[in-house]
């Protein structure tokens, strides 16, 4: 009897001596798996143009109807997207979304993908409707411009760029109109930048 009892005590003593496996969630976070289906991201091409062309196929594919897209024609002088149209408004109701990923499969330009962000919580329901501002990927060109270097764009840092990258008419100014965007290779993971 005593051997068994001592065996049990030894097992718990060993557990006490070993390191806890708890992850202190808000402060330290586990790396998200590369293909995790978290909150959506609207992507840009490398030159800053939005990939979304406002075709609304994602809204049609959505089984729960949580995506709302309002499209508008591109101004040829200052296009927002390389196509004829772009999305003026792009909203996803994150409380209704079931994170199935059908929108990403429907998208013809791979403009929308599921991102790594999983902490979809808020105190206000209204804030859980993600707008284009929330979803649109930040463009590294903006960051470099704000640092005073604007490679290939020649825009001085004194002229502030609208950092609200998702505002409907926030196409990067100063770019030659009609420039063909460099479309990245379709294979491989999209270069998702985790939200700051």
């Amino acid at each position, binding site marked *: 009897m005593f051997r068994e009892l001592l065996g049990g*005590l030894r097992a*718990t003593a060993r*557990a*006490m001596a*070993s390191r*806890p*496996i*708890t992850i*202190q969630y808000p402060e330290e976070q586990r790396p998200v798996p590369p293909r995790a289906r978290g909150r959506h991201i609207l992507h840009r091409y490398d030159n800053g143009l939005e990939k979304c062309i406002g075709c609304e196929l994602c809204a049609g594919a959505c089984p729960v109807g949580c995506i709302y897209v309002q499209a508008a024609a591109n101004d040829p002088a200052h296009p927002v997207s390389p196509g004829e149209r772009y999305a003026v408004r792009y909203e996803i109701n994150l409380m209704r979304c079931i994170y199935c990923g059908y929108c990403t499969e429907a998208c013809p330009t791979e403009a929308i993908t599921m991102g790594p962000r999983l902490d979809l919580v808020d105190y206000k329901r209204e804030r859980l409707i993600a707008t284009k501002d929330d979803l649109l990927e930040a463009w590294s060109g903006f960051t470099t411009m704000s640092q005073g270097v604007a490679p290939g764009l020649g825009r001085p840092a004194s002229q502030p760029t609208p950092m609200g990258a998702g505002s409907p008419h926030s196409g990067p100014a100063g770019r030659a109109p009609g420039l063909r965007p460099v479309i990245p290779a379709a294979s491989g993971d999209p270069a998702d930048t985790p939200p700051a």
Partner: protein
Amino acid sequence: MGQAAVSVVTLAVVRAPVSLPLTLVVALVKGVLVVFALATAAAYLTLLERKIAARIQLRIGPNRVGPGGLLQPAADGVKLIFKEKAAPAGRDRVLFQIAPALAAGAALFAFATIPINRTICVGGHGGAGPLSVSCAGGYLLHWDLANVNIGLLYILAVTSMGVYAIFLGGWSSNSKYSLLGALRSSAQLISYEMAVSFAIVGPILLAGTLNLEQMVHQQQGLWFIFLQPLGFLLYFTAAFAETNRLPFDLPEAEGELGAGYHTEFAGMRFGLFFFAEYINMVTVCSIATVLFLGGWLAPVWFLPSWLGPIWFVAKAGLLLFVMMWVRWTFPRLRYDRLMQFGWKVLLPLGLANIVVTAVFVAVR
């Protein structure tokens, strides 16, 4: 055989005349200190218990309130005080109020005769040693609330009062879970009270006194745990049952009884039962320290002996740690097994221990 006659200790006490007000003030201060220390200890034992449980389960445990979770007990206390005092409609109103107070009261009273250091002589010559206390021209400061010759009997009597608290708590709730818990607890506590009593007869026979301070003095050189290993094991095992701790926590078996006798208690009424459980743990571990582990005596001879209270707390703390370690290791016994273990294993072993010890003392 001439040595055996010494087993009745005559205590030569030379007391300086001390004024009554001074005695009262000292008693009051000591009483407040003991209650405060026990309350703090109970509060922090809950934190320690949660930390130990967490580490055994590879978790971290409470660490959000204060540095490293050190203010968690305060947060728990505030929460308990502000909770709604929900109570069942068919309760016995008087007993329902009295039971938690009785639980905490009995737990606190029991600590009165436990000495955490040797009696010292303040401002005079002399001091206390085995069989003699002298203090010429000074004040004799006892490190317990009441240095009485029947200290151990007093503790046994007062801890038995705790059964009333548990039973009245269960009875007055007018709930079947509470009543079942209370019935189990009465049966269990009464059975294990026997085992406890038998286990402590060994040290009593060896020391020849019921005065706890003198019992510690008798252990100078050799602690009773080395003479009474079985007695210590019996006492410590039965202590788990006496404090309703986990291998024997049938009175509050949460799996089958909700929470047993305190199912219907909410807020600070529940808090008092909880508080009483932890103070009882401190008490049984302190008694085990005094009876078997040499009380305030230094663990090894080269350590300073004037650190008495530190040694006492260290020894009692070690036992408390073992109690928690055991709680998070073993599953609960079935009720009939519990009673069988008490009556068919602990009690005969205790009796055998008494017989062997008595023969040993007689022929010594």
